[in-house]
């Protein structure tokens, strides 16, 4: 059997590898951005990593999201400004780190994931909304994030495509977008090149503690019971990283843990290509809207409009694509057309839905589960914008026991009570 560090597996062949003979440092579950990026950082640092993804790499929310790099506090995060001020301050601190990580990404990855950081504008159409912008900008500025409030005229000077109804906008010069379809596969290739094993079509079946580490078993996804493909493979690893996004709670169950992440179905719309007109990431402080123009010319319109999660046996099914709701498409496009009128002259060519996950407090879960030493979680909370940063910090945490920026406010310990009674 060849040395694990240089093997790069093709899609289907597991038969020739004796997984049990190798002790991995980290077994990562989930082939989305956080999983692949963490694999990349770990492997680069010399760790032995295996990543298991039950579908195709980047198939989930990582590949379906809007690709926004929104460093200022989003609409969904400021619904509870009074209660969450401290956490939000911390979150903004993370934004500053993330801006630097994104600026280095092309060098880091060795390819161009169509990154654009030409600035973002969060708009307001009423005086109440403008007041909200002012309030949140104080939190952002207190953490050193560069934001400045513009009035309607100034906003339109910068972005002439904005409607007259825009009365104010918070400008964040580092915001922008990146192509989610390119980013994660680039990390996966990088991880492979550094010796990580990236295995798609591998469905995790069991997760158990073994000796001082963990044993994870997996099977080829969709294989028929009794067939060769259905052979169960076991891997032994010191640490497990649950980066399975909307599937993370189900993975946690295998390790006998509660993980309070909840699936959310969202909608995205794409227009035909247009000449480059919209240079900024557009968001709205009081309505659900995100709008950007990609390098290719399409306008991507989203902002948190819901798609209907499917149900199976009385539970939300994170396995199937959520159902598109026409009302969401209409609401989303109407909002976009009111803020950026040129949208009406374009044709809608594509919609899609995806499933992401959120916690009750809207913040990510990042860290080790105290009741299960060696079991780490990284999921939820702006996983695209902060994905590379989460991955970098998690890899530091897993390798050295500490991360260069404290992840304490996002630790699973804040839900620790839930797992106090789990064996």
């Amino acid at each position, binding site marked *: 059997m060849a040395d694990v560090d240089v093997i790069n597996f093709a899609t289907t062949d597991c038969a020739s590898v004796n997984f049990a003979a190798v002790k991995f440092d980290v077994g990562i579950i989930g082939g989305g951005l956080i999983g692949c990026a963490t694999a990349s950082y770990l492997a680069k640092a010399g760790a032995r990593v295996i990543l298991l993804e039950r579908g*195709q790499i980047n198939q989930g929310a990582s590949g379906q999201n809007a690709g926004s790099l929104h460093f200022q506090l989003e609409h969904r995060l400021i619904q509870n400004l009074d209660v969450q001020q401290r956490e939000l301050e911390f979150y903004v601190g993370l934004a500053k780190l993330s801006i630097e990580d994104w600026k280095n990404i092309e060098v880091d990855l060795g390819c161009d994931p169509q990154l654009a950081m030409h600035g973002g504008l969060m708009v307001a159409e009423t005086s109440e909304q403008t007041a909200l912008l002012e309030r949140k900008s104080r939190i952002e500025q207190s953490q050193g994030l560069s934001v400045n409030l513009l009035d309607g005229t100034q906003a339109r000077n910068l972005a002439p495509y904005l409607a007259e109804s825009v009365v104010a906008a918070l400008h964040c010069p580092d915001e922008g977008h990146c192509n989610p379809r390119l980013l994660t596969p680039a990390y996966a290739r990088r991880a492979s090149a550094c010796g990580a094993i990236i295995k798609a079509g591998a469905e995790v079946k069991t997760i158990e503690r073994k000796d001082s580490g963990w044993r994870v078993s997996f099977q080829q996804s969709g294989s028929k019971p009794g067939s060769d493909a259905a052979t169960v493979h076991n891997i032994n690893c010191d640490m497990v990283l649950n980066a399975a996004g909307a599937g993370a709670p189900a993975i946690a169950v295998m390790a006998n843990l509660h993980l309070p992440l909840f699936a959310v179905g969202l909608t995205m719309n794409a227009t035909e290509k247009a000449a480059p007109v919209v240079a900024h990431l557009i968001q709205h402080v009081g309505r659900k809207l995100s709008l950007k123009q990609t390098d290719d010319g399409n306008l991507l319109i989203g902002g948190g409009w819901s798609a209907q999660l499917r149900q199976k046996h009385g539970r939300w099914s994170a396995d199937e694509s959520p159902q598109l709701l026409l009302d969401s498409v209409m609401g989303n496009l109407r909002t976009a057309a009111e803020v950026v009128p040129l949208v009406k002259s374009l044709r809608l060519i594509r919609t899609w839905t995806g499933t992401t996950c959120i916690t009750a407090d809207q913040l990510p879960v990042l860290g080790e589960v105290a009741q299960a030493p060696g079991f780490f979680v990284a999921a939820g909370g702006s996983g695209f914008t902060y994905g590379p940063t989460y991955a970098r910090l998690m890899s530091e945490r897993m390798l050295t026991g500490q991360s260069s920026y404290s992840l304490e406010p996002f630790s699973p310990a804040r839900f620790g009570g839930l797992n106090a009674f789990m064996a």
Partner: protein
Amino acid sequence: MSINPGTRQPETMKAELLIIGAGPAGMAAAEAAHGLGIDVVVVDEQAARGGQFLRQPPASFKLTDWLPGKTYSKAKTLLARSAELSDVKWLLRATVAGIFPVNNAQPGEARFRIIIDTQDGTQDWQARSVLIAGGCYDLPVTFPGWTIPGVMAAGGIQAFIKSQQLVPGQRFVLAGSHPLQLVIADQIIQAGGEVAAVLFAQSQSRALSLVRQPLTLWRHANKFIQMASILIRLRKAGVPVRFNQAVVQANGAEQLQSVSVASVNRQGEILKGASEEIECDRLGICYSFLSSAELVRQVNANCIWNARRGGWIAQHDHWMRSSIAGIYVAGETTGVAGSDTAMVEGKLAALGCALDLGQLQLSSAEQQALSMRRDLRRLNVFAELLSQLSWPNDAFFDQLISDSSIVCKCEELSAGELRQMLQDNPEISTASSAKLLSRAGMGLCQGRYCHHAVTRVVAQTRGLEEQEVVGFTSRFPAKPLSIGHLTELKG
């Protein structure tokens, strides 16, 4: 009676049965459903009824002898009768963008919300039942130069002649594997055009193998007599009809100048080496057809993939019900089988719908369905035979998809670029994930003109079966939809 979309009130945008497609299947279903007292609306993107099969000329053209010949007579009489259906509403120049199930629909209420785009705006319709009979389109075949102006789907050339009474070029080459290209060559000649060659990829004996099936010959004598007359006319006009030959490249900078032709052996292998050049300004590609399955897949009705029979084939029961309650399928949507089959399936679907709406007793429905199902069995035998003799083989097309050929014309992605992406990302093994990374299928045609080629490239590169690879997700809108129109929709 045509409805001017601009004057229709929102409250009246309701139907018991909304039929998508006014071709042979749709017209037959409309006639039958109307006869059973069902309130019917038929929607079609074209300006006139008849579908692609008939492609009616504009009303302003005065023609004495449109579409002569027995092939079209049944459908033409159906077309004439459909004009007399006073209570059927025909919504023409209207495109169905999406079908949305209504949650918790009560008995007797609309089960579906259908978004339809017209030149004047988007309309929001409600229907208790929907029949999807959207027909098919010429299989797009990828080879170097296929996007040069002058290269067209053979059916597209035919439509210029049938409908617009225009011979859309000077010197035509027809290439493919489907006998329809003989019909088209004949139509070109009769309209005064010049055909330099008709090329079949398969051998002559295979192309004409139906002749060796006496029972089929007997049952479908009309078709054979027609084909024989066509061959005679083509010979008289000096049109070479050649077998074991395929166009492997279209040449020309701004416009088609010539095609390169290579020989194909009996195993379907295109032989390398010297190819012959034929000068021409128009090339008609005529291999096969793909069913327009976007709406069927948008509603998640069960389909199976069979490239030879039209790609995505909607599954149905003996009443033409799809796997979604209230949605029926008929015509090429259930497998490419021609207009005669489509007309019978349309009638059967109308019966099924009437039965389900409680307008018809089971015994009466069964009685009427008996002969229809018998006809369908017979017709499907012929359709199956025809598809076998006219389909090269699944992997034949791989040979045409050279690295330099453009596999996604909308995004201008070459096959070489797609293959390189697959090589760099060994974990990608489906058309859908290949689309995500390469952008294939993300243009205005929404993957209609590349999904087959992308499937072939991924299947061949990964050593997988098409069925394991195939499938771009089909979503609203089924065709590009004006956002200006959509946002002005009330409600």
